């Protein structure tokens, strides 16, 4: 299998404000959010970044999506470096997180066209893709309704569709089912599996064990900014449930950290 994503020693630190230092009773001025992270994802697989809140999942994904720059290290996505060729990386990936909002005064139809233009998608391709995706997610009936008037689930579907207007080979998904009802969550997970079967590479971050067990081919467990282990789902589970296994690993690691 082709290595589509190589993460090499990715590190990101944040400055702590004086207030935060006091609050956390620490004299460190810098907090390491992601610490020398390395992993690989292969073509046609779903890779899960599993970790508790504050482990550095979102920071990692933001670096992969070129929204923030790593302090050191690099990530190569389909041959393009996030440090040296961020624009090239952006054309290869679809990135979706709940932080990325759509402007509420526009309709799904307008937004699809707008983002297609930003991605340089030809008009004819755009039309076909829009038709297929809108039908797939049932957006067609709401195509001319302003985003502000859509339900949360429908908004999420529109966000998803808009993030893949350019049919990217790598899809990065931060907490894909957060805040969604079971029906919409199911639609999203089904779609991710469908994308995998099309040979796409999908990176998801989550703290939900069942989601990882259901979706992921390989998993990296992230604790305090470090990759504690990274392997196929079965290798990590070692016959236990993922949840039990995670707590064992967590106690082993966090125990010597704190």
């Amino acid at each position, binding site marked *: 299998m082709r290595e589509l994503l190589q993460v090499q020693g990715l590190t990101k630190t944040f400055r702590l404000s004086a207030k935060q230092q006091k609050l956390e009773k620490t004299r460190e001025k810098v907090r390491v959010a992601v610490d020398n992270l390395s992993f690989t994802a292969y073509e046609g697989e779903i890779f899960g970044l599993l970790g508790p809140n504050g482990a550095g999942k979102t920071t990692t994904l933001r670096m992969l999506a070129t929204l923030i720059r790593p302090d050191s290290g690099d990530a190569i996505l389909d041959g393009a470096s996030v440090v040296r060729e961020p624009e090239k990386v952006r054309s290869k990936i679809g990135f979706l997180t709940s932080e990325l909002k759509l402007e509420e005064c*526009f309709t799904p139809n307008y937004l699809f066209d707008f983002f297609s233009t930003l*991605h*340089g998608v030809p008009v004819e391709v755009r039309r076909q893709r829009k038709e297929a995706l809108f039908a797939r997610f049932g957006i067609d009936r709401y195509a001319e309704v302003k985003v502000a008037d859509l339900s949360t689930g429908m908004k999420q579907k529109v966000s998803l569709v808009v993030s893949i207007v350019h049919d990217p080979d790598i899809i990065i998904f931060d907490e894909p089912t957060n805040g969604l009802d079971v029906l919409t969550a199911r639609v999203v997970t089904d779609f991710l599996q469908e994308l995998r079967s099309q040979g796409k590479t999908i990176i998801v971050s989550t703290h939900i064990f069942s989601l990882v067990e259901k979706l992921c081919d390989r998993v990296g467990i992230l604790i305090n900014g470090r990759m504690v282990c990274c392997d196929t789902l079965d290798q990590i589970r070692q016959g236990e449930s993922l949840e039990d296994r995670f707590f064992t690993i967590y106690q082993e690691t966090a125990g010597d950290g704190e």
Partner: protein
Amino acid sequence: MKQNGILAIMRKELARFFSDKRMVVSILLPGVLIYVMYSFMGQAMGSLYGVEEDYVPTVQVVQLPDSVVGLVETGGGLNLLEVDASAVAEAQSAVTDQTLDLLAVFPEDFDRAVAAYTPAGGQPAPNVELYYNAASTASQSAYMLLTSLLDGYEAQLANKFDINAGDKIYDLATEEDTAGTYFASLMPLLLMIFLYSGCVAVAPESIAGEKERGTIATMLITPIRRGDIAIGKILALALIALLSGASSAIGTVLALPKLMGAASDGLSANIYGVQDYLLLAAVILSTVVLLVTLISILSAFAKTVKEAQAYVMPLMILVMVLGVTAMFGGGAKTELWYYLIPLYNSVQCMVGVFSFSTVMAGVATALAANVIYTILGIFVLARMFNSEKIVFSR
């Protein structure tokens, strides 16, 4: 691809603006408000300083001299009523109560005292006391009328020479010069304020607002260049700001004759030619684009629209102060380096156009300088869009 990106951003900004009726109204409303307000102010000022035409103020006079009776008869406009010296206190309180317009107290034997008086004699001159009430327009105008009658009488008594006594036109300024000076002192300030308000109505909303709503990051993960986003936004915002500025300017031009009342006779913007208007348009265009860029950069530092509006306040004060400078100093500056100072150069160019003292090299310098400042600003804005501290600041 590159051009497409800029165009797409521009179209999106314009579509967002025009799809929001409140925004459209908020842009076009200032023009209407200015027209209504100025017209009302003009009317209010007219009625404040004028007394009804046929009203004749009543003046109570103590020891009324014959000479004054004659003066008022020829001059007219006052109703004299002789009273006794003992009624002074009562008359004074009547003036205070605005039931009497004016009280004049002449010294005893005024006419004889005046005839006998010589400035070289060392004695104090005979003194006339006029009690009036500045809070009443009728009293005020009666006071001024009687004062001028008496002044005229005094001058007539000792007439050694006259100034401009003939019927000739002594003010040799052309109508153009007068109107030009007037426009040059007022219009730059008004235009700068209108342009600024137009920019500030849209730019913080588009830059800080997108940050606040979290929609800018959605755009930043597409391969479009940050510079293209900056250019597209600035061009679209400048267009909207121009529209708003035009609305305000039209409101002003229409209301100006009403504001100025009679003083506006011969005050017409027709004195300016096509070339003047073209120059003005070029100056305004470069100013708006620069202003939008500056406000966009300030807004990009802010996390919310509200915060952005606080950040741009100092810029508004600066714009107003620079606009006021147009009221001082005759005509446009001739030294070219003045035209390198952003915003001040716009004011100077406007003064030049309005007062027919345009320094062509200066306008060229200003336009070039503004273009360079704008390009620098776009680079700064693009860099800010690239900065995680700016885009994700909490």
